[in-house]
């Protein structure tokens, strides 16, 4: 298989010694600036441009570029192109140039070796992003462009003045001249300095002698020149106008009549032997980005390839030690490292090892079958890695191959494939498509671009200062998020969110919440914004109200209940030492853990979070506590709070599987919050029932006074449904008097009248009676304490159970009376 992409490398200028910015902090390294700026190039997709696949930062300000590659270039063609070929070359180059121009990008080093030709004989411009990504050359110490093809004004004006699109038109003019005159290279014998003088001397041409005719004469090609069709001469003359003002832009040139005069579509710029076509592998059906992603998983490493080819040379540090360092920090006598000069050698990256790695994969895996009901017929289950831990699955070439192929297909079908995406995402989400999968899980739809475009992101507001001081402190270890472009995107998305949500305000922490979306949608701010806008109402409804204390306190009270429900011992201990969630869990929930974990962990955590509802994060919190359960149980307040001041190591995969387990065995009503967003259409599939069977709002004070959560009548009925749960999962503890109990009570319930409990004791104890023994034997079931109405006794008794270490204790909301509504009370049978 032929290489499909290639690497090259250069150095960014490093900032001198210890220079600081005005804020006293180090300047952003140029390579980071380049890294952030160049991301947009990866989104360019044009038939005549080589796609940028990756930008990688190495040590010492090294930047490595991975780009689509074609071995054939204009420079390598044996014969000059015929007329049709020249017109086609010109036309395709111009469409590519006008495309990059529309993104405010100028090629600046257009030359025959940067004009690649693909297998179909079409132009593929290469290296068109170098000038742009280096800040128009300002972040690197080498000049950009080949002097032979450079427009004269580039030599004349101050190098600070940026080149415009017309610079490329001149270069194209020279390239066309070479082809039209059939000279391999103009002025082949001239050295660099002479060459520059030569180009500048062209300025002496006047209206009588055009640049083109003069070159033709100098190269003794006059007869060839005279034989050229008028329209071509006119085109080249226009390109080689000395005054940039007289020179048309690529866009204008495309309107020239010559392109209507000739039909060149069918013409191929390079004939290729047919044998090459035969070896086409199924891998070539994959988008280049997937191919590159898999190449890396299969062990591809750009840096080491470049090293192998001698492009990256390491020098013993002793050789780069300066002779003299002055006290002020100036460095003298340092030998210039030759490797820091530009060497734009292009190193094709071989696909052989990837091909070998994927050799066992059957052809059918390249084209998974998805039915109209979006059932996936050919899935990755067949792959050996399917049962391995997530971290390994994410690095397994074959597994990821199947996942990316599948998810690409599913995403193409979104929103129709929504359910299949959810189902597949439960297994895992391939990192390559995570951004788009998240958007699908968040049900982002519609014209998000327009919505974002129309949102004011510029007008200064009083929150700007806070946003500006927060961004440079938000996940800045990450290259993307710490780049200048990253900061700009952060600011715009956050401002847009504040602008679009007048009911809310900017709270510190929103920046962290925004970070994963910017990271994943770095080239698609509108998408990052749309995801953030969908995420917040789903998980953090009302959290960003100016006065959010009721919302947060309710949330934390429910968190306390969740801990009590699942881990009474831990709950009792934390209660005892006063380690309350207010002191440690606000950053957890306010940012959905994005402030407390590094990005790779957040990504995995949110992969799961996005599949759960608004109560899921509570279980994540519990699972985190549980990972440090032993330490917590044996520590006092100070040690506990110190432990969580800076979140300790958490095994995310285990945390998530624990969270899912908690989530699945907890009745939803126990985490009811009045500030949660009302479940929309989707949530209402259960038949509506009597309002008394549902939860209703409690005040924060009430919630805080109760140690155990409440369960709704509806959830209890559901749990009592023996057709659903043949082995009962729940036991009702009826605390009413025996008289009432005997008239009618919940199926399977036991009666421990509240009078049996001594509610005045400091350390409440369980009474001793046969019913309590039954209760203890049923440890592990959901224990629902039910009294007459909302009896305070029920709450106290539940607390006694909790203090005695019984798990899964809750109180029936509104008491046993609600079961009457469902006619569920039966006469108890003796147990």
């Amino acid at each position, binding site marked *: 298989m032929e290489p499909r992409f290639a690497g090259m490398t250069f150095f960014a200028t490093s900032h001198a010694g210890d220079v600081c910015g005005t804020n006293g902090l180090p300047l952003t390294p140029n390579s980071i600036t380049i890294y952030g700026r160049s991301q947009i190039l990866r989104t360019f997709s044009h038939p005549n441009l080589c796609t940028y696949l990756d930008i990688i930062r190495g040590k010492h300000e090294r930047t490595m570029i991975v780009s689509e590659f074609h071995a054939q270039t204009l420079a390598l063609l044996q014969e000059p192109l015929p007329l049709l070929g020249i017109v086609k070359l010109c036309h395709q180059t111009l469409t590519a140039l006008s495309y990059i121009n529309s993104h405010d990008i100028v090629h600046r080093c257009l030359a025959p070796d940067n004009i690649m030709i693909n297998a179909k004989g079409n132009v593929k411009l290469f290296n068109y992003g170098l000038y742009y990504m280096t800040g128009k050359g300002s972040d690197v110490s080498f000049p950009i462009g080949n002097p032979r093809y450079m427009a004269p004004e580039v030599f004349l004006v101050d190098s600070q003045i940026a080149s415009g699109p017309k610079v490329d038109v001149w270069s194209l003019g020279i390239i066309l001249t070479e082809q039209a005159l059939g000279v391999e290279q103009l002025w082949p014998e001239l050295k660099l300095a002479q060459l520059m003088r030569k180009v500048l001397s062209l300025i002496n041409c006047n209206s009588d002698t055009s640049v083109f005719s003069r070159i033709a004469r100098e190269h003794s090609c006059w007869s060839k020149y005279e034989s050229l069709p008028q329209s071509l001469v006119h085109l080249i003359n226009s390109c080689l106008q000395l005054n940039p003002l007289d020179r048309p832009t690529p866009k204008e040139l495309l309107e020239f009549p010559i392109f209507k005069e000739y039909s060149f579509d069918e013409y191929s710029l390079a004939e290729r032997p047919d044998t090459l076509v035969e070896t086409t592998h199924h891998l070539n059906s994959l988008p280049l980005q997937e191919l590159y992603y898999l190449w890396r998983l299969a062990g591809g490493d750009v840096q080491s390839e470049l090293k192998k080819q001698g492009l990256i040379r390491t020098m013993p540090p002793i050789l780069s030690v300066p002779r003299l360092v002055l006290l002020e920090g100036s460095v003298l006598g340092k030998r210039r490292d030759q490797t820091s000069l530009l060497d734009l050698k292009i190193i094709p990256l071989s696909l052989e090892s990837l091909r070998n790695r994927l050799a066992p994969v059957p052809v059918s895996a390249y084209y998974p079958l998805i039915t109209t009901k979006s059932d996936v017929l050919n899935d990755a289950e067949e792959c050996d890695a399917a049962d391995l831990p997530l971290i390994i699955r994410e690095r397994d070439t074959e597994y990821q191959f199947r996942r990316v192929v599948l998810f690409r297909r599913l995403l193409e079908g979104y929103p129709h494939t929504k359910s299949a995406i959810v189902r597949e995402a439960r297994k895992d989400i391939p990192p390559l498509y995570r951004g788009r999968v998240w958007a699908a899980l968040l049900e982002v739809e519609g014209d998000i671009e327009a919505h974002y475009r129309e949102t004011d992101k510029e007008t200064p507001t009083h929150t700007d200062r*806070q946003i500006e001081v*927060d961004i440079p402190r938000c996940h800045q270890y990450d290259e993307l998020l710490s780049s200048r472009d990253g900061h700009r995107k952060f600011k715009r998305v956050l401002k847009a969110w504040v602008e679009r949500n007048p009911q809310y305000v900017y709270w510190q922490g929103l920046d962290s919440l925004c970070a994963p979306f910017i990271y994943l949608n770095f080239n698609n701010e509108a998408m990052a914004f749309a995801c953030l806008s969908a995420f917040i109402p789903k998980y953090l409804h009302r959290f960003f109200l100016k006065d959010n204390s009721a919302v947060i306190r309710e949330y934390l009270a429910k968190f306390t209940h969740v801990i009590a429900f699942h881990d009474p011992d831990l709950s009792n201990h934390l209660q005892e*030492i006063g380690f309350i969630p207010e002191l440690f869990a606000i*950053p957890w929930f306010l940012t959905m853990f994005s402030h407390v974990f590094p990005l790779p962990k957040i990504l995995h955590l949110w992969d799961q979070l996005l599949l759960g509802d608004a109560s899921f994060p509570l279980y994540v919190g519990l699972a985190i506590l549980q990972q440090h359960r032993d330490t917590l149980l044996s520590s006092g307040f100070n040690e506990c709070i110190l432990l969580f*001041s800076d979140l300790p190591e958490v095994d995310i995969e285990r945390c998530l599987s624990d969270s899912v387990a908690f989530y699945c065995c907890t009745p939803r009503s126990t985490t009811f919050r009045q500030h949660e967003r009302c479940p929309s259409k989707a949530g209402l599939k259960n038949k509506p029932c009597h309002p008394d069977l549902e939860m209703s709002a409690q005040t924060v004070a009430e919630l805080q006074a109760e140690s155990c959560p409440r369960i709704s009548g509806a959830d209890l009925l559901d749990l009592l449904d023996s057709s659903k749960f043949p082995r009962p999962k729940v036991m009702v503890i009826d605390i009413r008097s025996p008289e009432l109990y005997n008239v009618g009570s919940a199926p399977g319930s036991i009666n421990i009248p509240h009078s049996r409990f001594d509610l005045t004791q400091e350390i409440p104890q369980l009474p001793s009676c046969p019913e309590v023994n039954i209760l203890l034997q049923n440890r592990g079931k959901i224990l629902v304490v039910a009294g007459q109405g909302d009896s305070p006794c029920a709450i106290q008794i539940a607390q006694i159970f909790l203090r005695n270490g019984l798990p899964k204790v809750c109180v029936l909301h509104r008491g046993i009376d609600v079961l009457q509504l469902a006619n569920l009370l039966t006469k108890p049978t003796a147990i």
Partner: protein
Amino acid sequence: MANRGGAAQRPNSQTQGKICQFKLVLLGESAVGKSSLVLRFVKGQFHEYQESTIGAAFLTQTVCLEDTTVKFEIWDTAGQERYHSLAPMYYRGAQAAIIVYDITNMDSFGRAKVWVKELQRQASPNIVIALAGNKADLANSRAVECDEAQAYADENGLLFMETSAKTAKNVNEIFLAIAKKLPKNEQVSGAGSANQGRRLVESDSSAKTAGNCCK
């Protein structure tokens, strides 16, 4: 992990002599460098990209004064105005406070004055308050004159120093000055009594008096 509190102790924390434990709270506008000061004091480090604080963070550090070992239990709070409602939870019952502003930012000085007023009204009457003009390394872009801050501090009976978390200037000094000024009349048997922190949080009565460094 579990002994992070222990790691924060300096080698000179011999246990002879008195051991006093004080709650200290840091207050001040966002991004003035509260967390950076604490980090410098507790771990001797400076992070350029110090993360913003949400809610509050808790750290401890011990300093030695002649025959007394002073253990600070430090609450580093969030600076954004919106988190204001949480602040009383941390300063109630605190025996010391450092109010931080950024010498390159006039607004942060104004905000510091507001904090001083609030503490004078709401916190324990004997609370020791220090004013820290942080980022002293950026004297080139100074916006708050040292004299002005000193005069204000004198008027209000505050300790005052210009500090730099970046260069470590006056960081240990300001904590030491506070330690000196705190009354050390009672003695604790063992440092790190479990209920210390909780008291801070739960003492809604605000009847707590300063100097009660022991339990």
